[in-house]
């Protein structure tokens, strides 16, 4: 499902956390959203998910109505409730659950948990997991309904190296295979450059750049937006490597 934002704006009182952003996310592509802390990445995702009031226009396949099948994964969430992992992931299919949980629902949940390698966590309480395990559970929840739109707020920030790769590869498989429109906020610029098809660079609520990763992440952008002096190397296997050298100028979050 294609997502088009035009002059999308979100205000928190006087602050424009998202400031007149024009953006397109197309089916079958991962759009990575990068930018410094407080630049409006999470707010942008919430705006698309319909969790904050917005100004401007937001179209899904050319229509203003938001589809039911949006898989949204929030940035940080640590609920303490007596719900087990399998129940939490099942809730990702809220719209289609009948009073009795069907075989189909359980199979879908089982498949996602297997894919993310957390099937063994199924009977555990959600409040008794580590941060990274929790992150995987809520990723599983977002994926559980096979949504046509995936909005992921830092899906790999708490994961170990292996899980980071597994998740990013899974996202590519899902996005390209099912034609999902995926928007993922990523802090790890190397991961963003390596796995996203397109990148959007935010700075204080505004969209500074939007395009192919190599065009978005260059030395100038890193200096201007992040205040970081970095070198960019085209490393092994054709991957872009961003190596931070030091800070430049004054910078504030």
């Amino acid at each position, binding site marked *: 499902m294609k997502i088009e934002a035009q002059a999308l704006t979100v205000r928190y009182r006087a602050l424009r956390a998202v400031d007149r952003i024009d953006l397109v996310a197309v089916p079958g592509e991962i759009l990575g959203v990068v930018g410094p802390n407080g630049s409006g990445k999470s707010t942008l995702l919430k705006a698309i*998910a*319909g*969790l904050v009031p917005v100004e401007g226009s937001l179209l899904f396949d050319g229509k203003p109505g938001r589809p*039911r099948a*949006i898989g*949204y994964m*929030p940035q940080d*969430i640590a*609920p*303490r*409730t*007596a*719900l*087990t992992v*399998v*129940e*939490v*992931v*099942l*809730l*990702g299919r*809220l*719209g289609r*659950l009948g*009073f009795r*949980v069907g075989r189909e629902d*359980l*199979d879908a*949940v*089982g*498949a996602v*948990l*297997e894919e993310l390698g957390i*099937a*063994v966590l*199924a*009977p555990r*309480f959600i*409040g*008794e997991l580590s941060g990274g395990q929790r992150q995987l559970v809520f990723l599983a929840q977002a994926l559980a309904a096979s949504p046509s739109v995936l909005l992921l707020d830092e899906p790999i920030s708490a994961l170990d190296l292996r899980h980071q790769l597994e998740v990013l590869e899974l996202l590519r498989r899902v996005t390209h295979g099912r034609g999902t429109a995926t928007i993922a906020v990523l802090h790890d610029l190397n991961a963003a450059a390596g796995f996203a098809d397109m990148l959007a660079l935010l700075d204080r609520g505004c969209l500074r750049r939007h395009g192919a990763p190599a065009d978005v992440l260059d030395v100038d952008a890193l200096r201007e937006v992040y205040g970081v002096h970095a070198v960019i190397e085209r490393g092994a296997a054709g991957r872009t490597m961003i190596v931070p050298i030091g800070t430049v100028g004054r910078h504030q979050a």
Partner: protein
Amino acid sequence: MSDGPAAAYGRLAARRAAVLVLALAGLSVAGLLDVATGPAFLPVGDVARSVLRLSQDRTVDAIVWTIRLPVALTALVVGAALGLSGAIMQTILNNPLASSYTLGVSAGAGFGAALVIVAGPLLPLPESFAIPASAFVFAAIACAAVYLIGGLRGATPEMLVLAGIALLFLFQALLSLLQYVASPEALQQIVFWLFGSLQKASWGKLLIVALVVAACLPVLVRDVWPLTALRLGDERARGLGVDVRALRLRSFVLISALTGVAVAFVGTIGFIGLVAPHLARILIGEDQRGLLPASGLFGALLLSTASVASKTVVPGALFPIGIVTALVGVPFFLWLILGNRRAFW
């Protein structure tokens, strides 16, 4: 392909079913004992036969059907209403301390009852009708006030809880004021009403309570999944497509009806609404398809047990049920929450 998670879920569901069946069995026993105990103890076998309409004994039938059964069934239905409303309240307010008792709804009902008792002689209506009616109306007013005041700041759980606590103090102060100005007879009647009592139960009142509870059930059945999602927090629930505001409003109406009708006829019986959901949560978890019925069943079981206790602790005397539930409930509640170290709240 994935036997693990499905099997884990199957075990959860089986456990849930087992707890529900056990609770149902337990409350059947408690109900029978409740009918059997009284000024004259009836053998449980006779009681069971009479309840099942198999008895030949006219005296037993008379005692059971005209006096004790309405009381025993009222204990069950009122207990269920209190347990259910407590569970809904804890869920939508995301707070383990929430119950109609701690958030001013019962206090509102108590004030409504006291108002009629004090002003009774001035009213054109018979007190037996006016007291429950007024208690019900003031429970609804308290509920509406909690929602409206809390709603001024977006009806978040925190604001609603704070509003509820403010109302608790308000209604308690108003109640004290009424007690202060009341005549000695009226004062005694108010105090007695506040203790709670099942003895005024009748088939007619029982029918009203049962109808209100039954009317709430279809709404709850429809909302079980959204309510479960709400346990992940407001924002996560909204992200999953739940209209949180509407859900909360709808739930408040249910709480108001359930609590109102429960306390209207039997007075303020505290504790059940707080304890039953905790017991249910520990044994069953937060899937509201299990939690809500279990809270209702445990509420019924607890009140029925308390009713038996109120007749048997001091032989020949009848203890006010509200005092018994609190005396028995407090240690039980402490044991429950101290013994459970899981990260639930």
